[in-house]
């Protein structure tokens, strides 16, 4: 995405866009969670008709602990954009909330369910927010930095003494 689009975005949403930077050729805009729906709708109107990817990063120790990362692409011009949304996690408080964009791009359905499954970030307005990769009985969110890698929660194990 050329510098122009980024400036247009900042001009359009002055208070929503917290900061913009560009690293390794990817233009990034950090947007506040509240305005996310409006920004995304505007971007879709501005030609970004393709949601490439949606994921999250757990930056344990920094203040906005989670940040949800969206990658957009415009089919016509081929330009790409990354939108980041900070999500705060109060110490063992309720799950962080980010508005869902399933209404804008249907592809976000499973992607948001996966971020909920792996990070515990709730997407308000998502039609069917359940775990997608793990089983319902799983407690905790594995891709968080404080979840140990080998902490298994087995559904079923063979009991040698019973045979």
């Amino acid at each position, binding site marked *: 995405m050329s510098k122009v689009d980024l400036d247009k975005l900042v001009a359009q949403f002055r208070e929503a866009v917290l900061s913009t930077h560009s690293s390794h050729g990817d233009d990034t805009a950090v947007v506040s969670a509240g305005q996310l729906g409006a920004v995304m709708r505007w971007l879709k109107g501005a030609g970004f008709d393709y949601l490439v990817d949606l994921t999250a990063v757990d930056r344990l120790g920094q203040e906005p602990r989670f940040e949800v990362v969206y990658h957009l692409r415009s089919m016509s011009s081929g330009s790409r954009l990354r939108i980041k949304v900070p999500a705060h996690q109060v110490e063992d408080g309720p799950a962080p909330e980010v508005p869902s964009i399933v209404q804008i791009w249907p592809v976000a359905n499973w992607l948001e369910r996966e971020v909920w499954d792996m990070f515990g970030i709730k997407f308000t307005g998502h039609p069917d927010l359940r775990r997608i*990769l*793990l*089983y319902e009985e*799983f407690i905790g969110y*594995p891709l968080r930095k404080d*979840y*140990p*890698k*080998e*902490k*298994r*929660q*087995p*559904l*079923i*194990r*063979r*009991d*040698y*003494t*019973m*045979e």
Partner: protein
Amino acid sequence: MAENYLTKLDDALNWARKYSLFTYPFATACCAMEFMATMAPKHDIARFGAEFPRFSPRQADLLIIIGTITEKQAPALHRIWAQMAEPKYVMAFGVCASTGGFYQNYGTVPGCDQIIPVDVYVPGCPPRPEQVLDGLILVQKKITEGTTWVQRRDRGEKHGGEWVTPRPSENAEKKPGHLPVVS
């Protein structure tokens, strides 16, 4: 050593069962690609009588667990093994099925023998088709010797038998079906 347990009729039956193993390929991951190659004309599994994959546990003798077994898949695996008609044999195809391979994490079962008794483990990630055929020959040898898990159980051998199986540690809570969570 195991020969004297078997009578002539059992010998004949085992001989027949050995050469007509109908496989239930419980295929999940990358090893399935290698299983296709084992079935394909070049490394033909049909030479050993195990050509016909039966996708219903009622008609299968040999359950081949092909690929990684995850915690979410484990109940399905146990249910299919339980629904297999007797006598049933199990072969763990690949390192992930045998010990969980290099996926030692919250989502993967560390080896399918945590869920069902296994007769033959075929190492390799994925094992070469020759290794798989070697594993199949090993299953056939165990059938004739009478040392497969099903035959041991029919003879009433408890764990006190000569083969060693991992025992749950003493502090494991005594609920059936649950080992302590390794943290």
